Each structure stands twice: as structure tokens, then as C-alpha cells.
């Protein structure tokens, strides 16, 4: 349905191919968080890998920082409709976390857990083979607290709520179990190119 009198701020065709349906470009980096911004000191930080309820391995800040580093520059897409191009991240690929824990084939699904009590579900296939990382740096600087510092999950090809801020661990599960947002109406998978914003999209 055409809206009378609306033309909009349309971007050049070259960039528009990189913008999923219903999204618009921003230059800033908006912050959307459901509660207070947590304060987690690196000294108090650990990252725990579990399969089901069984802890497989935990890293403290310096152990985690000693893992191999990966860089990624990606476009990111927030469900509230902004997209940001060419964001540069550095962190530890999920593949390298799994390898360090000696876990070759965990279960097909995972829940990311966070220090603020939130969680989100992501299939293993979207975490492994170089697709995702635990990000520690953004644009060459330690990840700011507002954006999930000291560490956030980065799954850039899914809507950005899947890139859980203040991540505290990954729990591999047999079934695809809905996380905090997915229980509250958000889509279980969240592919921006298929506009999977809310349940049943």
C-alpha cells in the first residue's frame, strides 16, 4: 500500500543490495537493551561451555584472550529496522572455542547465556564454520560496555538480538530451545533477508 506523500530517504542502488527488506541505514550505533547496562570487570569474567547441563570447559579473561583471534567486517541488521554496514570486529571464533574445549561435534543447537540473565538460541550451523565469534573488540577498541563489553556474541548474518551482549557462555542443546526474546514473541531463527522479525513471520 503506497503511503500518500511519502518518498523516503532512499539510498543509492549499490548500497541498497546490502540492505534487507524493511531496514534502513544508520551511521551511528544505536543501543537497545531491556534492562540496566551490566558492569562486568574482566577479573570477574568467565566464559563457560556446556553440553546440556554438563560444563565442558570454562575460561577466565586471560585464558580466553590467549585463544586464536579472528577478525570480521560485516553488515549488521537490528530487528528495530536499522542496518549498519562494514562493522569491524575482533574476537574468538566459535570454532576455536570448540576446538580448545576438544569438542568436535556438539549438539545441533545452542543457547547463549548472558550476565544480565538474558539468553538467545542459535543453531550450531550458524555458529560454526567461521560464521560467528565471541567479540572482544569493536573498530579496534575494547568492546564498550553499552555494546556488550567486555564480550558479546557476534552472529552477524542474523538479526542483531541474536548477537547477545555480555555473553557468559554457550550451552549446547539437543533441541532448539527458545531464549528470552524468542519466548517473548521474537522469531526463533531471525534471518533478516527473510524478514523473520516476530514469531510466525
Amino acid at each position: 500500500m503506497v503511503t500518500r506523500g511519502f518518498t523516503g530517504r532512499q539510498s543509492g542502488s549499490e548500497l541498497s543490495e546490502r540492505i534487507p527488506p524493511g531496514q534502513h541505514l544508520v551511521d551511528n550505533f544505536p543501543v537497545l537493551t531491556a534492562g540496566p547496562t551490566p558492569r562486568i570487570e574482566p577479573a570477574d569474567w568467565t566464559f563457560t561451555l556446556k553440553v546440556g547441563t554438563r560444563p565442558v570447559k570454562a575460561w577466565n579473561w586471560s585464558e580466553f584472550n590467549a585463544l586464536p583471534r579472528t577478525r570480521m567486517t560485516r553488515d549488521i541488521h537490528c530487528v528495530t529496522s536499522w542496518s549498519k554496514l562494514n562493522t569491524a570486529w575482533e574476537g574468538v571464533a566459535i570454532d576455536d572455542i570448540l576446538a580448545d574445549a576438544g569438542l568436535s561435534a556438539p549438539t545441533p543447537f545452542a543457547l547463549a547465556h548472558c550476565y544480565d540473565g538474558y539468553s538467545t538460541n542459535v543453531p550450531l550451523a550458524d555458529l560454526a564454520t567461521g560464521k560467528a565469534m565471541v567479540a572482544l573488540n569493536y573498530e579496534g577498541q575494547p568492546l564498550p560496555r553499552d555494546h556488550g563489553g567486555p564480550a558479546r556474541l557476534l552472529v552477524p548474518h542474523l538479526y542483531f538480538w541474536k548477537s547477545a551482549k555480555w555473553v557468559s557462555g554457550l550451552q549446547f542443546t539437543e533441541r532448539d530451545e527458545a531464549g528470552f526474546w524468542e519466548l517473548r514473541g521474537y522469531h526463533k531463527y531471525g534471518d533478516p533477508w527473510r524478514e523473520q522479525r516476530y514469531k510466525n513471520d
Partner: protein
Amino acid sequence: MTEAIAATARWQSCAIVEIATRTPAIKSFFLRLSETFDYTAGQHVDVRLTAPNGYTAMRSYSIASAPSDSNVIELAIERLADGEVSPFFHDVARIGDMIELRGPLGGHFLWPGPTANPLLLIGAGSGVVPLMAMIRHRKASGEPVPVALLLSSRTWGDVLFRDELLELERSLPDLALALALTREPATRRDDFSRRIDSAMVAGVAARLPVPPGCAFVCGSNAFVDIATDAVLALGLKAMAIKTERYGA
């Protein structure tokens, strides 16, 4: 509940039936739903505008009206200079225009229902919109929940829903209203003439009969961070503090 709500959030087109200028920068748009929906105070809708060539722009707007039997909902939209969608509403939209929206959305920033614990609501500028829905719901439902609202605005003229809030303060004995003006001196004795800070939040919380069990904070990210730190300092648990950040 939320899952059922989300499952019915289909796009629908709604007629603008009324436009009201609220402040120099904020107008209310009253939209008649073609498919009514049940919502909870605090929820929002997504609005989608479509250009003749198919280009679309989508933004979220909190519902300002309290849930009721009416099929008209109120959105209050602040005009952001150089914005894509809010200037369209302010400068182009008129009564009778059809606007596409889907809702209700949001499963977190929600009126908690009849609760024994008082609520502390903190908003800045247009961030009072979902809090207004809660206060209007508090009034309409008669649920005995004491509520304190701390609302930060630039000037007296920028206080969104000012006259209605002043009237509600008079008619609802368990509503405490505190205004903070950042660019002009406050004239009401118990209001504030400064930006929000911890002492202010503690002072407003102390106007409740017992300490708040839950806080809702809405506004820009910078405002929300200051306000939530102040609420944490009151001793509330992080999970009892819900925030809605309008982004930037």
C-alpha cells in the same frame, strides 16, 4: 500471552482519525485499527510507510493510549530534524490518510498487572509514551498500584501530556508526579530544575508508600543509563528494572 499476541501481529492499514499537537515537537496521531487487538500498556507497534516505487521505511512507536474497547490507538511522535519517518508524520500526514502498522509488539516492557509493589516510572521527552499508557491504564482499571513518575523534559512547554498528568496527579491519590526541567527553572515546589541524578531518583522513589518493586525507564540510551544506575543504587535487582531505549 505474548506468544499469542505476536502470532496475531499482522500488517493492517489504519486511518488517521485525529491529530493533536502536544508540544512544539510532539504530535499525537489517533489511528483507527481495521483489526482490533488486545494489548498491554507498554507495548508498541511497528509502522511502515511505502513510497510509490515500493521503497519502505519502518519504525517502532509505543502505544500511548490505555487498553480499552476502543478501536482507536494513540501514538505520540516526536519530530526529529532530518529524520525519515517522524517528519513525515508531522509535515505530511493528515486526517483520513491510511497508515500501515502491525502490533501489538514487545513482550518485556509491560504493565505488570495487579501487584502489591509500587512502580517507579522514569522517562525523558517522548520516552513518557509507554509510561503514559501505564498510568492511563492504572487510572482506568483502578488496580491499586501506587505509581511514581519522574519525567524529564527540556521546558514546561515540552512536558508531553502535561495537563493530563497534572489532572491525574490531582485525581489519583496514589500517583506521585515529579517533573525535571533541564532548560528552565521549575515552578512547582517539588519539581526539579536540573538533569536527572541519583538523589532525584531516590527522592521521587521516597514519595511512594513503600519502596518500589519494579521500575520502568524509557528514553534515550544516555538517559536510561543514568536513570537505571540510580535505580540500582536504590537496591532494586537488575531484572526488576525494565528499559525501553529509543535507540541513539
